[in-house]
Structure formats: C-alpha cells, structure tokens
C-alpha cells in the first residue's frame, strides 16, 4: 500500500505546480491617490482653511491620481466618488468636475476639487471623503491609497511656529483674530522655516499694517484688548 500513497502524494504535488498564467505588464492599469507625484506611500488626509487665504470665497484643492500601467494616447475615465458615509460636507460645499479622467500621456493627473466658503466653516470643520472605484479601465491600487479625506474650515489655530520666542520678540500674545490680521498683512501663514531676521521683517510689516490701518480709522482688537506686536520688536 505504501507505494500507492507515495505515488498519490507526488501526483498531488505535481498537479499543484501547474503554471499560472501571468499577465503582461500593462495589460491591466491600476489607479491610486497620492499627495505628490513622486509619492509611493499611503495617501495622507488634506487639511485646508480659508483663514489662510483671506479674501477667497472658493478655492481649488488639487487631488492627485497616479497610474500603474501603460500610458495611452486617449483620456481614460476614472471612477472617483464621494463616500457619503464618511462625508459631512453638503453638496453645496464643494464641486467636482463633471467628468473625471486621466488625460492621455499622463501618469499623474490632477482632479480639481473646488471648496466653497460658508459661515458654517467658521465654527466647524467639514469633511469630504473621495474614494476611487474600480471600473472597466482601472483597477484599484494599494488599499491605503484608495480614498482621501479632505477636511476644510474657515477656522484658525495657533500654529507651531508661534512659539514663546516669537511671542516675546515679535508678535506678542496669540489670538485667532491677530493671526488672521497677520496673514492679511504679510500674505504668509507659515513662518516655520524662516530665519529670525525674516520673522522680524514680517513682524515689522505686520506692525506697520496695524499702525497704517489705525491711522485710517480701523479698530484692531481681540480678547486681549488692542492688537499689537511685541514691545521688544525693533
């Protein structure tokens, strides 16, 4: 009996080793979401605040999609949908292109998501989850790159660069109202990588903005009283 068992097991092994058919490269195309064209890692959520863009009533968020597969001459449709179960924004808060596609000859393409400013954004953040779906043309790429969350608001918060040093030497005590004015005066919201001299120069521009405005009758106040820069700023 023993030889029969051995023959049977070997037969199973042999049949188990039958060759899989392997697709040629480019036979199938995959699509996935990225934060930058060179990214290969999981897509990260996007945060946006209208507070950093004074005067804007709507703004465009570029959502990047990336191809695995062969480039083609023709545009190809992508299925990108709003996942209602994970979205708090109303349809009136945003706008996607009527047709979403990967343009010919492009391995990375941009889908314009237009965000609309509203009063609701001053008090709360809204979220949109955009999710890719497989279609006849594209299969889905890595699981971690199949959807992206875009959170947006018109809210502002103390940034990390507004340290105690910046407070003492340049901008004094933080308030949301002061930060908004600072952005309006200087056109920048982020001083993270700036030198001390550059931070000082922006603080001087802000100081003069306040003084110039006050001379024209503007009132700048926050919960701390008059909005001013640090008395140590010279």
């Amino acid at each position, binding site marked *: 009996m023993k030889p029969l068992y051995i023959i049977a097991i070997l037969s199973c092994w042999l049949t188990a080793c039958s060759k899989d058919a392997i697709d040629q490269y480019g036979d199938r195309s995959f699509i996935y979401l990225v934060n930058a064209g060179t990214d290969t890692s999981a897509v990260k959520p996007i945060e946006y605040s209208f507070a950093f863009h004074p005067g804007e009533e709507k703004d465009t968020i570029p959502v990047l999609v990336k191809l695995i597969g062969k480039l083609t001459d023709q545009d190809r449709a992508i299925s990108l949908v709003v996942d209602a179960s994970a979205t708090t924004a109303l349809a009136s808060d945003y706008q996607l292109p009527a047709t979403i596609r990967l343009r010919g000859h492009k391995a990375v393409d941009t889908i314009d998501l237009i965000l609309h400013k509203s009063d609701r954004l001053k008090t709360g953040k809204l979220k949109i989850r955009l999710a890719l779906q497989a279609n006849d043309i594209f299969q889905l790429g890595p699981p971690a790159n199949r959807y992206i969350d875009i959170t947006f608001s018109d809210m502002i918060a103390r940034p990390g660069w507004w340290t105690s040093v910046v407070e003492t030497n340049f901008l004094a005590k933080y308030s949301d109202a002061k930060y908004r004015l600072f952005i309006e005066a200087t056109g920048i919201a982020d001083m993270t990588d700036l030198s001390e001299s550059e931070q000082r*120069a922006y603080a*001087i521009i802000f100081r003069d903005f306040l003084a110039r405005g006050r001379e024209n009758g503007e009132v700048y106040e926050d919960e701390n009283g008059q909005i001013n820069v640090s008395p140590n700023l*010279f």
Partner: protein
Amino acid sequence: MKKISLYSLISLLFLLATSCYKGKGNYSYDELNKVTILFKDGAFISPRVSDTLNIDPKLIYKGDTILASTATETFSFTWYCNDKQIATGPILHYAVRDLTGIRPYLKLKLVNKKDESVFLAGITVDAIPAYLTGWVVLTKKDNRSIISFIDPLTYEVTADFYTTMSGEELGPHAIEVKEHWMAGAGLSNPGNLLIVRNDAAGNLELDGNDLKPIYKTNNFFLGNATPDDFRPAGEFYMWDYSMMLDDNGNIYTRKHVNNAFSQSGVYPNKPMFIPGGVKFDRGWAGTYLSGQTVLYDKTKGKLFLGSDRGLVLPVSYMPGPPIPPGTTLIDAMDKELVYVGALKQGRFTSSYYLVFSNGTNHFVQKIMAIDQFYTVQAVFFYETGFGSGTANAQSIFCQLPRIDNYMFYSGGSGNKTLYLYEHGAARSSEYYSFDSPVKTISVNQNMVMGVQTHDQLMVGLENGDVYILGVLSDEMADPAKRLKKKIVLDKGVPVSSMYKMGFGFNQMM
C-alpha cells in the same frame, strides 16, 4: 698590603696635585664685540602695499653707530621673510607686495666675518592695502557712472576701477559714494565702500581693502524680492540697524543679524509706516559714533531722525523759552533744507549744522539732536544768515566734522569759488577760485594712530578737474600754501566724492 694601599694613596694625591698646576695664562684672546641692530622705524612698520622697502639698518658696534651699508667688509648680511631667505647684502630693497604672509616678519642675520659670531633682529610688516585710504570720486560721463580712486600721498589715479575690476558697468544712475564700517567687526577692520544707485538694480558694496564688489544690497530684501517700484535714494548704517531710502520717499529698516558682517539681516519689502503720510526727500548720515540719520520731509517741512534702534521719529525742540522769532523751525520749515553737516560727537547725542535756503538767502542753524528712544528732541543753539552775495542755488556745502568753526561752501559767479565760513565770527572769506563750477566738496580730517596727518579738502569741478586743498592752520593763513595738487581726472562731471578713512578707529578719533 697596608703598604700597597699607602703607596696607591700617595700616587693619587701626587696626580691630583699635578693636575692643579696653575696655567701660565699665556693664551691669546680676541674681544667678542656684540652688535646691536636697529631699524629706523622700530620693530613694526606699516608701508603701503605699493611701496618698495629700502631698509639700511643701523649697527651699534664697538661703541659706534654705523649704517649697515658701510660695514660690508666686517659683516655678511642675509634677509629672511618668515624664515625664507629673500636677499643678501646690507640694504634690503624689496617690494612690499612680494612679501609673503599676512603680517610678514622680516629678519636680518648678520655674521661677523672674522669670528663667525651671529646676530639677529627683526621687524613686523603690517602693510597698508593699496586702497585702504584715499579719495574716491564718482563722476558721470557719456551716460556712464565712473568711480575713481586717488592715492592720498602720490595722487596716483586708479580711474574707473569698478568696471576694470568687476567687468560690469555701474550704470548711469549712481548718485553717492560713502564709507561703511561694520559695527561689530572691530575697529581695526577697514570700512567698505557703498555705492548708492538710483536704479532698480540697487546699491553695491565693495571690499574696503581691494575695492572688489562683495554685495548687492537688493539681495537683502525679504524673500529676495525688492519692493514695488523700488530705486534707492540713500542707504544709512547705524550700528545694529540700517535704513534704505527710495526715491518714492519710503524708508525700509532692518536689524543686522550679525553686525560683524557689513550686510546681514533682511529689509522688509513693504515701506515702513511713518504717521501722517510722511515721505522723505533726502537723508544725511550722522557720524558713525552717533548712530543717527537725519531725514527730511520737504513737503511738510519737518526734520526726522533715524535711530540705531530702527525707529524714525520727528525731531522737535526741547521745551522751554521760545525759539527766537524768525528762526527756521525744524518741525515747520518755511525754507528748504539744503544741507546737513554732522559734527563728530557722542552716541545718541550729536550736533548738526542745518543749512536752509529761501531761494535768495542762506541760513545756518546749529542744533544738537538727542535720541531719547521713543522721542527725539533738539537743543537749539542759534540761527544766522550767511553767504549773502556768495552762496547760491548751486552751492555745495561741507562742514568739517571735527572742527566746529569751519564750513566750506561754493558760490560766487558761476559757482566757481570756494568760500570758508567761520561760524564763530559769522564770517565768509574766499578760499580758492577755480575755472569751472564746483560740483562736489569732501573733507579728510584724518588721524592715523592718534597722529594728525593731513587735513585736506577735495573739490571736484564740472570740467572733470579735481583739486586737493590744505586746510591746516598755516594753509588757512597763507593762500599761497592752499593748493596741494590739481588732478586732471577727466572722467566727467563729479557727482559725489569722499575720503576713504580706512580703519574703523580713524573715524572714532
């Protein structure tokens, strides 16, 4: 056995006794004469780089003082620079620029040919760079700005040096040359040369030693972006701060991150806010020590002070008894401010002569500006009319910064005469006459290591000639001694001129 020991002891004693036998002292000795080597200017000399050393040291030998050049039979001479042999012979004839090392040490090795005795002495050479001190003239010719250097001793002209050295043109709009010292770089460092250009390309800074370009001040604006419609009209350095004035009347102020560097820190690229819509027409640098800049709003007729804390503040008179009627008020001028001459005084407090013109007559007012951090007040001394019949709309003024009493100005027919105005006596007198209109006057009140060398004036004429005039007491007393040198520069019409004082300590004295 005992006898053997005894005999041995006796033999040893005998040997010892013979070894102590006295010498007769009949050797022949030569006296060794020490030689002291003396250098004429001591152990430290400061020739100019362009000079050639010609050193014939003195030797004190056998009680006599002789020149090395007369002792070649007795001694051999070898010269070293930083231990490398550079010459043999009693006199060192050697070009300074060929010496090696930053502060070369020259050593003379002297060998007595008779007894081979060797003597050494040395001097340190601290060479003065070719362009450390001298006159600098900015001229305009054929739509070109040309900058030339004039040696203060030989009057040798290095013409158009910026274009020669950099291979670039200054452009047609250079308006001023001035010396710029770094507050934290030490007083033994030379001041750099700043060229103010009323041009979108901005100002240039040249190295104080070799006059090579080192900075473009446009690169020191926030984000490397100059303000809109920006063309400099002046730049002023005050210890830790500097101020840029543009031809729209705006001021930009920056703090130097490291004041050991001549350019550090960034200017904001938006104009500084000055209350009341103030715009400045002109600025005059105060002295280095004062840390002040005088700014003038012609439209409002007001005087302002830029401080070395980056502030620009209006200047008002000290409160007290009324300013005499008829005085030109610095906070409500009814005449045009045409010149400000600074006196070298202290930090935060410095005096100025303000020259006003009503179109016909000129007036000079002396004030002392006191920077009180958040306010600036001025002590009023006096105001008096001057230059009646001599000063005119083309007059150029030059107050001596270290001698309060003297202010020179041009005037007379065709603006071809230089006058000396003495504040104390309120008296004008003709100092020198030229054959072409005066365009620039600058002064050198120079002291090197506390020694007054040559106070002089340079007068630049429209025809391109430059005159160096003496202003020391004997030269003031005797008109025949006033002309030191006439230089036919021939590089166009002078626009601005200065004396480059060199080391920082020169302008502190």
